């Protein structure tokens, strides 16, 4: 297991815990993510992935424990974090009744872009993500793949230092998924740290490092090869199935 030095870390999580009523969603999470890394957070439904991401983005207050994201404390400086991160929620969260270009324009200006700078950035995003032919279309009329491109455009309008992607490719066709990962790697090469959750095992294998969550607990972390060795399984998919089996066994 490799633990990055603190000054090299985009995310440092220490003893993070989240309780909803009597249900423990995340328990004693310890994790570090390096700058510029593509980091995969995996686990069955209800394992605490989304809760973890939401705590890191300042959308939920941790019950206890601490975390810093891009150098800022999630409890004390959530607004500093919000300026430097981009976030794609599990569910499409953009405005159906605004056009593609209007959504990008809105998020650009919310992130502080004005005038010519915003127009240039909007044009650049439309071009880079191939959204130009759809610029005038209402977001609500787009299919899954196009919506995902638009969401990525809005989340990266301000060139964030870190990007949180919560199941970004759910319900998206294989061609769009491949294209999406192409952009993710392009962003990582420019130095953007990426934290992504996914259910697709081929996507998990594209991540530089992985963490497996099960019932709120971190049970494995490392490169694909390290995780495979730890579980003695031939593929990430097998690790996943093994985990789900253990979870269900524990639930009985």
């Amino acid at each position, binding site marked *: 297991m490799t633990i990055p030095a603190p000054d090299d870390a985009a995310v440092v999580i220490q003893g993070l815990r989240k309780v909803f009523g009597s249900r423990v969603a995340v328990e004693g999470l310890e994790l570090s993510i390096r700058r510029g890394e593509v980091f995969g957070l995996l686990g069955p439904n209800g394992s605490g992935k989304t809760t973890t991401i939401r705590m890191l983005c*300042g*959308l939920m207050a941790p019950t206890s424990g601490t975390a810093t994201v891009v150098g800022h404390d999630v409890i004390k400086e959530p607004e500093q974090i919000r300026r430097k*991160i981009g976030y794609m*929620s599990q569910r499409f969260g*953009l405005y159906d*009744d605004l056009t593609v270009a209007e959504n990008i324009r809105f998020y650009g200006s*919310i992130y502080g872009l004005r005038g010519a700078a915003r127009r240039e950035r909007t044009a650049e995003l439309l071009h880079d993500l191939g959204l130009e032919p759809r610029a005038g279309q209402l977001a609500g009329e787009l299919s899954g793949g196009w919506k995902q491109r638009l969401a990525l455009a*809005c989340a990266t309008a301000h060139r964030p230092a870190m990007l949180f992607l919560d199941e970004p490719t759910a319900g998206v066709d294989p061609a769009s998924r491949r294209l999406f990962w192409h952009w993710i790697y392009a962003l990582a090469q420019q130095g953007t740290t990426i934290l992504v959750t996914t259910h697709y095992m081929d996507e998990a294998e594209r991540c530089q490092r992985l963490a497996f969550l099960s019932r709120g607990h971190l049970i494995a972390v490392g490169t694909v090869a390290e995780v495979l060795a730890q579980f003695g399984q031939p593929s990430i998919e097998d690790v996943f199935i093994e985990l789900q089996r253990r979870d269900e066994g524990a639930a009985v």
Partner: protein
Amino acid sequence: MRLWPMLWKELVQLRRDRFTLAMMLGIPAIQLVLFGYAIQTEVRHLATVVLDESRTPESRRLIEVLRNTGNFDIVEQVRSRGELADRIEAGRASAGLVIPPRFMRDIERGGTGQAQIIVDAADPLASSAALSGAALAGSARAAELSGGHRPRLEMRVRPWYNPGLRSAVYIVPGIIGVLLSLTLVLITSMSIVRERERGTLEQLIVTPIDKTSLILGKILPFLLIGYVQISVILILGRLLFQVPMLGSLALLYLLSFAFIIASLALGLLMSTLVRSQVQAMQLSFLFLLPNILLSGFMFPREAMPAPAQWIGAALPLTYFLRILRGVLLKNVGLDHLWREGLILVAFATVLVALSVVRFQKTIE
């Protein structure tokens, strides 16, 4: 501050939301017509039977005077008190006029001619309106008759501001306030919950947008809607019910500002308390009830027990009604309305501040 982007977004959405726009303009028009025509507390054309035992020019003159008030329709001349009672009992008539045999004689001798109006008072609202109409007509006739002679004591009732005692004149300015309370509170109470339900709020609050911009961005576009609604009701009230506009419209629009903002902010405050659009709608309608009953819109606050008056005093509408009626019906100026204006500004400030404080950029 990121107010402008938020305003821009809300305005673009509002322009595309034809249904809400139509509702915002259609609701005031429909409600105005419903309220304006249905809440007519003055009673016109009350079916009336006449027992004229005097059968003189003077008695016929009195019948004519009453008929001319428009409150009474003479449907039958009856021959006895028994017949008169029978007609009212059977519901064929709601009022009876009795002129005794010595009516003319009394007047000619310089005494007081007496006539009697009997009213079916099962509906007190209708009967009191009829009674006051008759009393007015009677005293007017008495004044004519007395000529130069002065009666020793005379109580003259002179209704100011609304000499015809027409209820539409009183009701329509109030409708502006009631409708604004309902639609503006409803609109904003739903708008944040709608974003929560659609998942767009999560994406929005993960940005560095400040709470003040978010709240004001949700409020200010609807200020426009509020002013459009006021104008629609004023114009229709003028065309359909001949509601007078004696005072300064500029003053009315100025003072409306604080009321509209207060209503919108109240809606936002509600939206921080509810979880769904349905709950928001229910809460808005719950809020409507005290506004209709306790603000002085339908019933005079002076007649209410103290606790009801206290609740009324906590409603912005109570003060806005005074402004509306004062400006429209009495041409009252800022010198008499500044207190109401200040109270509304205080409501608006506190409610906006509260909704900013209560709104949390989290999704728990």
